[in-house]
């Protein structure tokens, strides 16, 4: 039974995503909030309407798998684009702006966590959710608005790359701490069975394993380039794609089995592949896979979200959104000035950095794992979903209306943030 309707379920999932995407496009919004809402609407948590249940999607395993691939490819792609030399080239300016960005927002996020009565680890999760802006939403809006051709886009994208590095380190640490000796990672798909075979128990051993895996991947990135070149040396695009997917899913999956964040493993593997001459070809062939699986990831987040739970955290959510929208404005403006941009361009950096998205959700998904054992894990997840819905839309709207805001606020006030 389950097997026969699986294909139909997949069809429903993608049909719903297609509708959500079309609606978002129609209103000039990022697709990410739309995909989440799509997941909520057809998910198991929506109450019955007129005695008819809207629960269209129940079979979860294949969705989990695709969502997991979505995380892997999101991070793999970011690793692929990650270029240490480029970051180093504008090091002084971007380090300053990046430190301001992550410092202010991370601190405020953690402080709000404590204020809400969260534990230290839970507050650390909230700090991550709040601090990292959405590369996907912001980059797309930069292109749509044509800001991509202006100098502020370099600062904005530089900040996003800086945040990518922070996220990689952050996830590695948080995964090791949160999932300690349990061996299971963010995904329970592959983890459960194999993880029980994992002989390494205890937090210390787990951190040692994480470190070993990440060091191995860094070594691959530094010295393994010829090896990877040979691995991908094929004229057939089909072979090429299969090999890339095999490497990404294989390495990330193995990392997960060993209790290491699969997202971080994918990031480093991506960086290793990014050093080869195949980088652009990989980007070409892998983009559609990434978009497809990432869509399912956002959908799956929606599926898991209980609207009632989100409604229950409306007040802290409103406070969180208001405060951290303001902090991103401040850190973005300040960062832009530190980078050497004019006031007006710095204001653009400020509004651009407001949008939060995929990273906040990746972090929240980790916090909600039962293995993480966080008492407020579900609250954090609900908070994060509501937060991304608000901030994703708010960020896009702010960027789109920045000219109007500019005229309104900065014709009478000459200076400001």
């Amino acid at each position, binding site marked *: 039974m389950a097997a026969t309707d699986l294909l139909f379920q997949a069809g429903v999932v993608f049909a719903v995503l297609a509708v959500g995407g079309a609606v978002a496009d129609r209103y000039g919004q990022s697709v990410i909030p739309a995909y989440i809402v799509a997941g909520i609407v057809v998910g198991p948590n929506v109450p019955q309407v007129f005695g008819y249940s809207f629960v269209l999607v129940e079979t979860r395993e294949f969705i989990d798998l695709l969502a997991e691939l979505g995380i892997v490819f999101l991070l793999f*792609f*970011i690793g692929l*684009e*990650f*270029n240490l030399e*480029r970051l180093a080239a504008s090091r002084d300016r971007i380090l300053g702006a990046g430190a301001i960005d992550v410092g202010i927002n991370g601190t405020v996020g953690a402080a709000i966590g404590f204020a809400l009565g969260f534990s230290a680890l839970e507050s650390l999760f909230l700090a991550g959710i709040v601090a990292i802006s959405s*590369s996907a939403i912001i*980059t797309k809006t*930069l*292109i749509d608005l*044509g*800001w*991509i*051709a*202006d*100098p502020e*886009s*370099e600062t904005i*994208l530089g900040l*996003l*790359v800086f945040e990518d590095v922070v996220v990689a380190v952050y996830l590695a640490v948080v995964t090791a701490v949160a999932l300690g000796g349990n061996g299971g990672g963010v995904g329970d798909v592959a983890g459960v069975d194999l993880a029980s075979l994992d002989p390494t128990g205890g937090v210390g051993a787990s951190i040692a394993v994480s470190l070993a895996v990440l060091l191995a991947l860094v070594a691959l990135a530094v010295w393994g380039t010829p090896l990877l070149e040979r691995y991908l040396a094929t004229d057939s695009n089909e072979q090429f794609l299969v090999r890339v997917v095999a490497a990404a899913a294989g390495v990330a999956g193995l990392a997960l089995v060993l209790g290491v964040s699969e997202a971080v493993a994918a990031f480093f593997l991506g960086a290793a592949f990014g050093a080869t001459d195949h980088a*652009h070809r990989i*980007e*070409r062939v892998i*983009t559609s896979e990434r978009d497809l699986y990432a869509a399912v990831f956002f959908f799956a987040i929606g599926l898991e979200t209980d609207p009632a739970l989100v409604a229950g955290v409306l007040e802290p959510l409103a406070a969180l959104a208001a405060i951290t929208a303001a902090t991103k404005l401040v850190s973005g403006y300040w960062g832009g000035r530190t980078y050497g941009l*004019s006031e*007006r361009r710095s204001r653009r950096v400020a509004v651009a950095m407001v949008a939060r998205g995929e990273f906040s959700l990746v972090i929240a998904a980790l916090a909600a794992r039962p293995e993480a054992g966080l008492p407020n894990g579900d609250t954090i997840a609900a908070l994060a979903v509501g937060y991304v819905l608000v901030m994703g839309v708010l960020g896009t709207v702010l960027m789109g209306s920045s000219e109007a805001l500019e005229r309104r606020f900065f014709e009478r006030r000459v200076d400001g943030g």
Partner: protein
Amino acid sequence: MTVYETDIPGVGRKFELELADGSRAVVLHHHDGRREVFRRPDPEADSEQIFDLPAEQARQLGSILTGAHFESVDATDLSVPLGDAIIEWVDVPADSPLVGETVLGANVRGETGATVVALQRGTDTFTNPGGDVLLEPDDVLVALGTRAEQRSLARLVEGATEFGGSTDGPGAAGGPTGDDAGEGSADAESGDPTDDGE
């Protein structure tokens, strides 16, 4: 004039070109081949999009801008206004019966129907060689004619008289059936220059 080149993570590559009037042309290469062209009037102004082109059109525009645009760049659309005639490059081997003769003297056009429009010798080119240039080994004849005429010419130059090919006459559509073997080898010889010529 300086060109500034920047990688744009997740998007592609950005090029900025300083223009004479102080403005900047900004070209954005997307990974998917799409090209956007902007103009930024001055450093504090916002860039205005001028073009948003798919890869194919961007290349076309680029070749027009560089003055390198030919309609014939696409080899599949290649058209040469010669009717049925084609141009072939025919090597003159050392043992060719034509060595020591002139194009006129060998009655090449009368024998084969093909017209020798030029003769290449090393780096020299003799256009329209008539009775004044004696053929030497390793000369290359540039001949205009139909495929059948080109085959006749190839046979004549090869000295394929033992196959009876040189008496085919002008414009012969094909030799007698007995010639097939000889014709095959002559074609094989002239195959490469044919490809080059087209």
